């Protein structure tokens, strides 16, 4: 099934084996959110989960930190089987798995500082000084050192998501789960959020798993991606791979997007090689590129 398992087999930090999850709907019917599937995600990877709404991508993400208990199957993170852990062991294990959300989910009645300190305080083996140092470090990392004593209500959406990232990073996680992190943000804020996530992955070596309905986000951020449909894992691939190897419509659409991006970059490089005319042309192309909005799939096929 896996067309590209080389990278993930090298050193998986997340291993889902035959996991499945169904829910009982209010009318009593069963809804198969995730049908039995297996997935490995390599350490240091940025992995995208894409699919239409209701495809099970969010549920799959929430299986990784056991926010949803799988009906069957095994969930291994950093070599630890999570499904067999007791409550307090699971709480300890969750420190190694950060998570951010579409709606940020910050404590509204706590300052930025207290929000970031929250995960450190609930695992009571840090001194006050350690917590203070770590909170400042994490907020510096996301560029919010000047907002320590503010409440979330006065921050912009992008700033709130940065606080959420700082909070997720505070306990030094190995994995960062992102559930539609940019869906409540505008294009410009999304771009800078993606830069932050990229930097976290590169500099801290945190493995990132991201659920999104924005293909442009996957294209710009992820090295690997998996496509889900009706709870099935349709395919997974390297984002830089070729379009004709893709089985799903979404996969091909993503490939077209990547190709377009590469082509534009090449054109810019060619322009850069030229003289004054080349520089002018490059500027023209750059401004043109800025005008093209980040690609979001039409709602009809996606939302």
């Amino acid at each position: 099934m896996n067309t590209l398992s080389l990278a993930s087999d090298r050193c998986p930090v997340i291993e889902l084996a035959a996991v499945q999850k169904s829910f009982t709907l209010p009318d009593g019917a069963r809804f198969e959110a995730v049908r039995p599937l297996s997935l490995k995600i390599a350490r240091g990877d940025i992995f995208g989960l894409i699919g239409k709404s209701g495809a099970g991508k969010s549920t799959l993400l929430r299986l990784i930190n056991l926010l949803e208990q799988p009906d069957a199957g095994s969930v291994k993170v950093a070599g630890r089987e999570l499904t067999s852990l007791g409550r307090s062991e699971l709480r300890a294990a969750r420190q190694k798995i950060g998570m951010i959300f579409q709606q940020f989910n910050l404590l509204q009645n706590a300052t930025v500082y207290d929000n970031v300190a929250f995960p450190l305080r609930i695992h009571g083996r840090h001194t006050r000084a350690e917590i203070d140092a770590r909170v400042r470090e994490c907020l510096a990392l996301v560029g919010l050192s000047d907002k320590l004593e503010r409440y979330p209500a006065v921050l912009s959406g992008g700033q709130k998501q940065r606080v959420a990232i700082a909070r997720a990073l505070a306990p030094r996680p190995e994995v960062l789960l992102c559930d539609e992190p940019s869906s409540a943000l505008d294009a410009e804020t999304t771009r800078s959020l993606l830069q932050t996530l990229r930097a976290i992955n590169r500099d801290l070596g945190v493995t990132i798993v991201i659920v999104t309905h924005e293909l442009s986000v996957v294209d710009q951020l992820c090295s690997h991606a998996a496509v889900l449909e009706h709870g099935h894992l349709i395919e997974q691939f390297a984002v830089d791979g070729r379009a004709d190897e893709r089985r799903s419509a979404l996969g091909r659409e993503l490939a077209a997007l990547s190709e377009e991006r590469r082509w534009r970059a090449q054109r810019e490089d060619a322009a850069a090689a030229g003289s004054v005319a080349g520089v002018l042309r490059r500027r023209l192309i750059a401004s043109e590129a800025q005008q093209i909005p980040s690609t979001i799939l039409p709602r009809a096929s996606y939302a």
Partner: protein
Amino acid sequence: MPESFIDLLPELVYALGQTFLMLGVGLTAAILFGGPLGVLLFLLGAGQSLANRPLYLTLSWLVNTVRSFPFIILMVALVPFTRLVAGTSIGPLAAAVPLSVAAIPYLARLVEQTLREVPRGVIEAAHAMGASEWQIVWRVLVLEARSGLILALTVLAVSFLSYSAIAGVVGGGGIGDLAIRYGYYRFETDIMLLTVALLIVIVQIIQFGGNALAHRLDKR
């Protein structure tokens, strides 16, 4: 007429003290027992972390049952229990017993409803960070719902100010008792008006204080 007010003053002050004693005991019992009961009801509710339908329905039924008693009947029904707890069935301390029994489920229900206003995602984020149930209660639910909880307590205090007047009927004393004894039974309308005016002022102060505190605590 004015001299009757002055004659009444010591009794008025005494009655005021009785009222605050009844309210104080009732509200304290409500916070100590009704608060945790409300949190428990919330956590046992559908979709919450301790979701347990049979237990939720049992507790919920109990809360509804106590709340459905007309207060005066509850007070009389509880006389043996009151004697056991307070040693007597007369006076403000004795009246505080049925007041407490009525206030506990009242506040529990208010607390449960208030906690439902806390966004689900925030509780979920705390779970994802590895918080225990206890930590979620104190560091998430109480923190996020604190202004709502203050308003719930304000509603309770105002309702129980008037409940405490009913307690006067069976010898509880207090400001409401004064209104009934002098104003209602003896047709001293001015004294009745005075006590009612006093109750209006107290209610306004409670509500104003509650609103102000809730507003200060609300950073949303």
